[in-house]
């Protein structure tokens, strides 16, 4: 059953918007301690100084570790060996964080790589098929794929229609339809044709296919530092320099005071002060952020896009499939000419039994929910002939054995059927039909033929039904400072009605691709960042213009090229989750940076009295943790500094808990948890470590 007034429909029929933060398909963020052990060899390989240089903070720690090891060899003592070993452990833990994050991606990459096996391809050259290897296919080649064969490369269907199993890529087992022309033409190499025959034009160069990019992305191989990450690295590097300055100049002051310090102690102080916690976890946070997207079946072409998602101010959401269900649904039954409402419901249900379209099903559901009519099965009606809906008749219905006929369909078609069967349409029906249309709905007329007399029973009101929970989601987005704009091909009256019902901030009615483009440009001109989803070729310019353009995997290759993310589930609602993941990524970085810096306060209180209480006994008053000995105090700070990295790996991988809140509320919460927490936790942690460490002979 077609819906004449609506824009093109998405193939996606998500039943319900998943609630924020719903459990993704792949166990996101579940952290298995065994991963630590498995990643250990990788962590050791990362000790290569050339690779350490990427993280200036950890590079300094590695130099410190080498330095203290040399000192421990030339002038051995229990203390110096303990410090040297723990500095190496600190570096190792940092590498471990990165290795674990990468390892999780690598597991996914391995699955993907399995789909990338060489397959024979049936290339068409001047209409003649020749079998070549899939790896030799280049741009513009035409290949034939039939049921049971694997599609040899990324491309667009140029001929035919087929059902395709894309579970290798999307994890979704239900087959999808791919057909030439329109917005469902893109196919991915490695997926399997289940039925029919299609001709595919290859659109990706060898080695640059979708799966290739996906593998590179999840492995972190093509990961480049994002703008915010670079900015944060700059800050961390300069904090490192400041602390280097503070420690280097401390020795002359110590010398003046008559308490020259050993190099081991100075290195320990430096390592404790520089922001090692965030320095160690920074790259793991970035990898994990991309990973979280992949786990939600979204493939970002760049980390920059993920960050931009956190900054988005305006979301352009297509009405159909995103805000409303992909199909209209029966919402009420309007009897005409004094017909009993229950009788209308009964007839409407009968007429819809054979109608398997979502609209038809919705009539049966409405009859059951509102009128208590049990759904009848076709087998219960012996001798009945069901009339299927066709584009020509634009009606569906049933002819019962007793000659009783029921029809339901577009107003014009049903009215004509009534006239043909000698009935006279009631005048009132036109008013009702017009009324439904004016309210933005689609009217379906129900009529019956009883005793050779056809007459109209009433009208079914089909309307867009806003998905459950959308209003709350838009409220949340508004609280986060994100404006939602509904884009629809509907007329302004209908659009406004749905916009009001859904609670979006604004709408764009009778939208053509150019209008979408103009809207994006206008918003960007005001300094705002825009995110949108799209699947059609005519969406491509807007997808490219938007700061975050999420292409549906079902869409055309042009759309997928233009966007900077692809949603493998083709669920436009996911845009909201993408924004949240982007924000969560930044929040995790900010929170751990704050935590890392706040930690330094406790470390000063541990190390400074330990260093100088010998010279100025009054400085022992600063030893508020009452750490056992100077050696145990310094060692405890170093050990705590290393352990906190491992302790925070799960948090770095999972991301800090994110709830949609206003910026002010979010800041308050995070400043309290990670700022204040960052001050308090190390006081307790260092004290606990000291209790253990002071038992070591030569330390305690």
């Amino acid at each position, binding site marked *: 059953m077609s819906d004449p007034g609506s824009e093109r429909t998405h193939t996606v029929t998500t039943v319900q918007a998943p609630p924020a933060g719903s459990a993704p398909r792949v166990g996101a963020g579940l952290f298995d301690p065994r991963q630590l052990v498995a990643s250990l060899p990788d962590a050791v390989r990362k000790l290569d100084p050339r690779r350490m240089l990427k993280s200036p903070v950890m590079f300094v720690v590695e130099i410190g570790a080498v330095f203290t090891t040399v000192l421990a060899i030339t002038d051995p003592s229990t203390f110096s060996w303990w410090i040297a070993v723990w500095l190496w452990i600190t570096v190792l833990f940092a590498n471990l964080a990165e290795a674990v994050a990468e390892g999780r991606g690598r597991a996914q990459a391995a699955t993907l790589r399995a789909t990338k096996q060489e397959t024979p391809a049936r290339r068409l050259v001047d209409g003649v098929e020749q079998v070549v290897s899939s790896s030799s296919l280049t741009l513009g080649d035409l290949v034939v794929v039939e049921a049971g064969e694997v599609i040899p490369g990324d491309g667009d269907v140029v001929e035919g229609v087929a059902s395709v199993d894309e579970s290798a890529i999307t994890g979704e087992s239900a087959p999808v339809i791919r057909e030439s022309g329109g917005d469902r033409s893109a196919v991915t190499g490695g997926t399997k044709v289940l039925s029919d025959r299609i001709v595919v034009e290859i659109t990706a160069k060898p080695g640059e296919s979708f799966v290739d990019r996906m593998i590179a992305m999840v492995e972190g191989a093509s990961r480049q530092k994002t703008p915010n990450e670079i900015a944060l690295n700059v800050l961390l590097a300069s904090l490192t320099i400041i602390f280097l300055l*503070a420690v280097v100049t401390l020795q002359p002051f110590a010398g003046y005071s008559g308490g020259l310090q050993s190099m081991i102690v100075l290195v320990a102080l430096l390592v404790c002060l520089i922001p090692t916690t965030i320095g160690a976890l920074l790259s793991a946070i970035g990898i994990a952020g991309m990973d979280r997207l992949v786990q939600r079946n979204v493939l970002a072409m760049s980390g920059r896009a993920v960050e931009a998602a956190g900054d988005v101010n305006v979301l352009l959401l297509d009405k159909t499939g995103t805000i409303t269900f992909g199909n209209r649904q029966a919402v009420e039954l309007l009897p005409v000419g004094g017909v009993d409402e229950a009788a209308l419901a009964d007839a409407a249900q009968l007429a819809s039994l054979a109608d398997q379209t979502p609209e038809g099903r919705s009539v049966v559901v409405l009859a059951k929910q509102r009128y208590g009519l049990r759904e009848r099965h076709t087998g219960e009606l012996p001798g009945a002939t069901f009339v299927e809906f066709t584009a020509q008749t634009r009606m569906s219905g049933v002819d019962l054995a007793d000659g009783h006929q029921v029809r339901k369909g577009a107003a014009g078609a049903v009215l004509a059927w009534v006239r043909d069967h000698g009935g006279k349409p009631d005048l009132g029906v036109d008013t009702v039909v017009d009324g439904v249309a004016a309210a933005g709905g689609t009217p379906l007329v129900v009529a019956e033929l009883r005793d050779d007399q056809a007459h109209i029973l009433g009208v079914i009101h089909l309307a867009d039904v806003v998905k459950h929970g959308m209003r709350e989601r838009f409220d949340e987005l508004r609280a986060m400072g994100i404006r939602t704009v509904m884009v629809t091909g509907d007329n302004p009256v209908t659009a406004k009605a749905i916009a009001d019902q859904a609670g979006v901030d604004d709408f764009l009615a009778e939208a053509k691709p150019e209008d979408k483009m103009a809207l994006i440009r206008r918003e960007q001109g005001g300094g*705002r960042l825009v995110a949108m989803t799209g699947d059609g070729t005519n969406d491509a310019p807007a997808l490219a213009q938007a700061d975050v353009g999420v292409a549906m995997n079902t869409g055309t290759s042009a759309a997928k090229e233009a966007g900077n993310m692809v949603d493998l589930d083709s669920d436009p609602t996911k845009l909201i989750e993408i924004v949240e993941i982007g924000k969560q990524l930044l929040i995790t970085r900010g929170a751990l940076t704050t935590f890392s810096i706040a930690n330094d306060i406790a470390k000063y209180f541990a190390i400074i009295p330990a260093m100088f209480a010998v010279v100025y006994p009054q400085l022992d008053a600063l030893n508020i943790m009452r750490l056992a000995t100077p050696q145990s105090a310094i060692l405890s700070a170093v050990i705590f500094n290393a352990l906190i990295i491992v302790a925070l790996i799960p948090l770095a991988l999972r991301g800090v808990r994110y709830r949609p809140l206003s910026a002010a509320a979010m800041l308050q919460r*995070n400043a309290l948890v990670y700022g204040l927490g960052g001050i308090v936790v190390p006081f307790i942690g260092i004290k606990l470590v000291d209790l253990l460490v002071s038992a070591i002979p030569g330390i305690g």
Partner: protein
Amino acid sequence: MSATAAGLLQIVLLLVLLAVAFRPLGDHIARVFTSTRHLAVERAFYRIVRVDPEADQRWSTYLLSVLGFSAVSVLLLYAILRLQDLLPLSLGFDGMAPDLAFNTATSFVANTNWQSYAGESTLGYTAQMAGLTVQNFLSAAVGLAVAIALIRGLTRRRTDRLGNFWVDLTRAVVRVLLPIAFLFALVLVAGGVVQNLSEPHDVTTLGGAVQSLIGGPVASQEAIKLLGTNGGGFFNANSAHPFENANALTNLLEIFLLLVIPVALCRTYGVLVKDKRQGYAVLAAMAVLWGAALVAVTAAEVNHSGTVPQAAGASLEGKEVRFDVWASALFANSTTGTSTGAVNSMHASYTGAGGGMVMLNMMLGEVSPGGVGSGLYGMVVLAILAVFLAGLMVGRTPEYLGKKIGRYEISLVALYILAMPFALLIGAAIASSFDTTRASLLNEGPQGLSEILYAFASGANNNGSAFAGLSANTEYYNTALGLAMLIGRFTTMVLVLALAGALARQRPTPVTAGTLPTHRPLFVGLHSVTVIIVAGLTFFPALALGPIAVALA
């Protein structure tokens, strides 16, 4: 009236005076730098120096103008000081030695006014007036101009122009500093501060000795010394000298003068960024820092546990009995919280905690409320740092007043944060390492280290106050402190103007509920904590061996 009541009353009076001046002065300064009219005297000046007042400068041109002008100022002042024996009204004093002249010239041009000499026994009236007083005006005007340029960077969109330095400089002098300084010079004269060009008076003291008392154009220099957060005294004893600071009333007025422009600039800021709440937020952060330090200094000085202070009721050594402990603490806290450096008491004689606190005031980077212009731009730079950390925590690319803080912006902020500790710690580390440099110290142990740390904190932060005790007129200290003053003043200006240029290029992001609000108490708290943490983490080890060791002894 008890000392406590009198002390509190003074603080209340000071706050009332500042509150009264806040709006009119802040609005006036905002108008001065946005007006399109030129006064006749200004136009004449532009013709003489041949600048086009309508020309809008790029940040680099603005910066070159600042640096060029300041370099010429240093050279001129250096020449005056070296050659003062050839000038009229020299009172027979010789020209300064090269290292002292370098130190003094950079000191006054860098708005520091560190004095390695005693004014009354070194300088004649011409050098004081044509050299030092002129720089008191100009160096403050340069600071004000740079602050205004930074505000333009924050408010302008998609431009590479930051205004005209020569116009900003001229207006700062003609329309802001001169009128207020003139007015308050008269008020100070009325209050008992001397103003003459007479030869020294010889008086016979009660003990029968003959003492030569130098008068001079004191009040005129005094007003701008405080108003421009300069701090260079006419006399060695600075505002503890009765000719500079006659009584409790002039004392209060002097504290008011040194605070008034840095405080009112917050209003100017709010007006110019078209969101007065942003100005109040910056003011609130400054007030938190100033207030907390005041409580700490006063408490440390009033409740001292030593034997002598117990007997005297408070720590009175090194303080003018005329001003008692409360007024001294208020002055000391305000002069170190602004980059003034005038003193009405000797900070070296403060308790360990009190002395450490005034030192920390400087180490915060002179932002509570800081120098003329420099206090505001220092605080804005630290706000940007606070925004960067807090902004990440709300899940957005950090932005301040709609301008994004990216890699380039945060690099400049990071270098700004680095510049002052670099000059301070390196200079002090060298000074504490050699017998020759340690010979200048009066005290040994932690108090001696405090003397060194204080001197370099004062120099690198362009404060100029001395801890006393340190004999700083040596080649090392004159040169090292001179360099520290130049680094502390001008590398930061380079970075601030580059930052202004980067911000002006941007298109501002509109404010939404997702924007981190920078005018709420929560952010004020974060802002203040950022200032304290940055300084605290940098200087804690050094402070532990100096004032903290003294305080805990």
